[in-house]
């Protein structure tokens, strides 16, 4: 039942780790998030050092997102054009975010900024998604319609400032027209926040795609997974090469669970409505926010912590 992890230097119950992978993979397939904001704290709870938990999680997300991307690609749910623009912005933003953290670490303000960014971003995103989805569900009930809902269908509306930007291009898969600058800049913004928070940024990218890029929910999930896969490939390689913090055996156990979980999540998502998916994700995001707030205000049981991680 136990397996020794050569980089984490600890022994874990491998069934428990596979189970964690399965659970988080399920969320990944359902919502198009990598699940880093959930998995890293869970790994730390079972005794994995923070730096190794974060880096190894990126490795398993490569597998889960590849599995999910493949499933969504087969369903025609991946907007590659949009994904690549977001990816370009994400890489630039990520590099910029890493520099911000370096400067803040030197001045001693990094940890405070990281925690506050977590609480504010998760709280705002979770609350907004929750009430927006709740309203949409109520409206749907009142209208008693089985047609595609407003949120899961592309809506071409007057874009104001966005519409006046140059390089307007039509995104066939999503059925929306935007300036190419919009996804690049939004991708960069998410990239900066993701680098500060040390996560893949899926839970930020998904709302950005839904509410700012007005993409249909099902294309959002596939495109988000496509983008996360590339981000996590970069993170895994850099962490393994520069910091030696990727525990491959741990990643292998997690990915055995997560790749299956991602597939089950995709099948399960098929049975759920777009707004139901969003409200579920909102509840999970709000629960994680509540956990972080509690950790911030309650006195910790241990007053010392290993160096590294958040």
């Amino acid at each position, binding site marked *: 039942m*136990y*397996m*020794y992890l*050569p*980089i984490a*230097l600890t*022994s874990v119950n491998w069934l428990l780790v596979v189970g964690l992978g399965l659970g988080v993979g399920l969320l990944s397939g359902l919502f198009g998030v990598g699940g880093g904001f959930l998995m890293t704290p869970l790994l730390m709870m079972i005794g994995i050092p923070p730096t190794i938990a974060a880096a190894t999680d990126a*490795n*398993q997300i490569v*597998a*889960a*997102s*590849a*599995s*999910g*991307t*493949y*499933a969504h690609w*087969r*369903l025609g*749910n991946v907007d590659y054009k949009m994904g690549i623009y977001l990816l370009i912005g994400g890489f630039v933003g990520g590099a910029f975010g890493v520099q911000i953290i370096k400067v803040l670490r030197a001045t*001693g303000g990094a*940890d*405070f900024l990281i*925690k506050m960014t977590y609480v504010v971003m998760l709280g705002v995103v979770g609350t907004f998604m929750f009430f927006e989805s709740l309203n949409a569900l109520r409206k749907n009930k009142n209208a008693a319609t089985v047609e595609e809902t407003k949120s899961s269908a592309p809506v071409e509306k007057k874009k104001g400032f966005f519409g006046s930007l140059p390089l307007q291009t039509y995104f066939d898969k999503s059925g929306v027209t935007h300036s190419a600058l919009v996804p690049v800049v939004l991708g960069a913004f998410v990239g900066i926040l993701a680098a500060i928070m040390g996560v893949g940024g899926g839970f930020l990218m998904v709302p950005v795609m839904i509410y700012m890029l007005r993409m249909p*929910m*099902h294309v959002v999930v596939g495109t988000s997974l496509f983008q996360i*896969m590339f981000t996590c*490939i970069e993170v*895994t*390689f*850099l*962490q*393994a*090469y*520069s910091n*030696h913090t*990727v525990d*491959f*055996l741990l*990643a*292998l156990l997690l*990915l055995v669970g997560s*790749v299956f979980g991602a*597939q089950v999540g*995709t*099948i399960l*998502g*098929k*049975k*759920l409505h*777009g707004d139901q998916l969003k409200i579920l994700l909102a509840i999970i995001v709000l629960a994680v926010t509540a956990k972080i707030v509690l950790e*911030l205000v*309650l006195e910790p049981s*241990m*007053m*010392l*912590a*290993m*160096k590294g991680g958040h």
Partner: protein
Amino acid sequence: MNTTLISRFAVLLVLIGLTFTPAPAHAVTSKVSPDNIKINLTYHGATLSVTGENVAGDDLIIRIGNEADDAHYKYMGKAGGLFWMKKGDVSFKNVPGVYLLYSSRELENLLDDAAQTANLIGYKALTEVAEMETPSAELKGDEARWKNEFIRFKEKQNLYAIHTGTVTRQHGQTNDTYQVEVAWPFQAPPGEYTVEAMAVRNGQVVERSRAQFTVERSGVVAKLSDLAFNNAALYGMMAVIIAIIAGFAVGMIFKKGGGAH
């Protein structure tokens, strides 16, 4: 002439006497088994058996650990008087990474404070020898509290422990024999460790002996560790490629299970 003969005879008698007189009970001995612990894929710690002989009636203290080193941490504090978070760096110098202590009786019944400190026995002795370093002004002047936090942290990791009354002894004709079973924690990193058996008599450590054992990676654990640290680029590529293949392979297995939301 007679005097010389008598002297020689006397020396001979002394030598014969020395040869046939039973040796005085001395030197506590120690042996650890196994003396080599292999960390393989299914490793979850080990059971060590420390055995030896000691002078009848002596008490025993067995200390297991490694070389003293420096330990670096982040300390938790309140930012803005409201939020708990990692605030700054703190280091503890001259502290062992692993410190397991076993004794035949309660430590305070064996040695006084001075003797415990002199022999590095007990947490109080450890905190007296340890030095704390931090750039933070708020920690200075409160060293005792933070050294105790360090001990608590190590105890939680199962790397520090004190088990009194756990050394079992059996009386022999000349010497006693002793034994202690040690649950070696899987959290202890690979390296060289020392077992030190101390015989205690009349409030003093009168004799000591040492045995050594090693903890080392083997098999797949050793190979992966070697690859990760000595060929990091290849290791990183392997981790990425296997993850991608696994993801797509499972995607293909589930090919018929997919469908639109």
